[in-house]
């Protein structure tokens, strides 16, 4: 077994060691100047889901009058305003690697403490370890200033410990895209108590520090272990969508099968795309559903009458139909018709 040892001037050493088997092993270093990160996880480094703003299941422009979920996994606030998907110009070089979209936070009226943040499941996340937040941002209009921070939330139920807020620093935005990096020692949770409701989390984001208005753009948000901001981790669209669907998904749509429980009510079976974080809430998105049954098509205003929910699926009774025959089957023809949310 051969090895090369690099020793520092006063302390510390690095050993590169070959395996004790025959053959040749080649370590290819990058051709351009860069950092070969070893303290970070090599896969799924970014603990932020949808940091590239590719997934917008709720719609690509969400009005705000308080705080609401907008782009998947991002909770955003403003007294009035919006958070909307914007497209990058092809070939632009200010934000590297050709991202498709960014998020635009429009703040029409404001009070302090509104924020853009993501709630990472489990307050144990990186507790007692060093972590780095990085993102691109700019301020096309207005003069709002923001502060990056993390919040350790111990949940509800029982006697959970009080929330711990750690400020990472103020962001000085300009009209040009800039990359911002903050390294933080995430406080230890030794001696803390979790709530019993299984809803504790680590919040990562930025908060308004004044009452000004304007627009702020965000791109490529990354939160990772270690004290180095590695290049933004691009994950395939399907992988990112699946990760979002643990918290929010719209599985009730075209192709769902139900049966007539009466001449005006159909019971539908819904299997989620994946197991959700908790038993989700359900909202009907479309009140003019179309079905095929008994060779006919029926369209009607409809409303949920009753539902039974679990983390993996649901049965939903919807009223408002006409012309049904009890026990016959019906097939839904309207896509994306009910949303299930198990957000933090």
């Amino acid at each position: 077994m051969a090895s090369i040892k690099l020793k520092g001037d006063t302390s510390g050493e690095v050993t590169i060691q070959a395996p004790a088997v025959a053959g040749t092993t080649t370590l290819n270093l990058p051709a351009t100047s860069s950092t070969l990160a070893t303290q970070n996880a090599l896969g799924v480094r970014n603990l932020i889901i949808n940091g590239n703003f590719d997934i917008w299941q709720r719609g690509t422009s969400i009005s705000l009058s308080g705080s609401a979920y907008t782009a998947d996994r991002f909770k955003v606030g403003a007294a009035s305003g919006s958070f909307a998907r914007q497209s990058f110009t092809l070939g632009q070089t200010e934000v590297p690697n050709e991202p498709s979209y960014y998020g635009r936070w429009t703040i029409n009226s404001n009070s302090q403490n509104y924020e853009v943040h993501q709630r990472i499941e489990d307050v144990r996340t990186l507790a007692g370890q060093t972590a780095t937040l990085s993102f691109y941002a700019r301020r096309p209009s207005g003069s709002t200033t923001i502060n990056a921070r993390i919040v350790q939330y111990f949940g509800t139920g029982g006697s959970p410990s009080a929330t711990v807020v750690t400020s990472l620093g103020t962001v000085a935005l300009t009209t040009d895209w800039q990359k911002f990096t903050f390294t933080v020692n995430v406080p230890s949770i030794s001696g803390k108590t979790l709530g019993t409701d299984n809803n504790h989390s680590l919040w990562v984001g930025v908060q308004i520090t004044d009452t000004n208005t304007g627009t702020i753009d965000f791109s490529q948000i990354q939160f990772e272990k270690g004290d180095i901001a590695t290049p933004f981790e691009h994950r395939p669209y399907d992988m990112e969508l699946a990760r979002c669907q643990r918290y929010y998904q719209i599985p009730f749509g075209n192709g769902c099968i139900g049966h007539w429980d009466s001449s005006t009510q159909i019971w539908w079976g819904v299997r989620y795309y994946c197991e959700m974080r908790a038993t989700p809430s359900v909202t009907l998105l479309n009140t003019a559903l179309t079905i095929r049954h008994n060779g006919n098509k029926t369209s009607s205003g409809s409303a949920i009458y009753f539902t039974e929910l679990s983390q993996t699926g649901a049965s939903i009774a919807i009223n408002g139909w006409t012309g049904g025959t009890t026990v016959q089957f019906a097939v839904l023809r309207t896509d994306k018709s009910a949303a299930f949310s198990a957000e933090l």
Partner: protein
Amino acid sequence: MYKKINDENSIEANVILRTTDNTFIPKDEANTDYQEYLEWVAEGNTPEEAE
């Protein structure tokens, strides 16, 4: 703002209806919508009775 729901046997169901957006909320403490409902009740509010 909230309304109790009965099942087909007229027994109070394991869901609450948020009437502002017709969202059905499970009585699961890990669900944040249910936590908001519990806070609303703790503030002295009362949901509508089921029909």
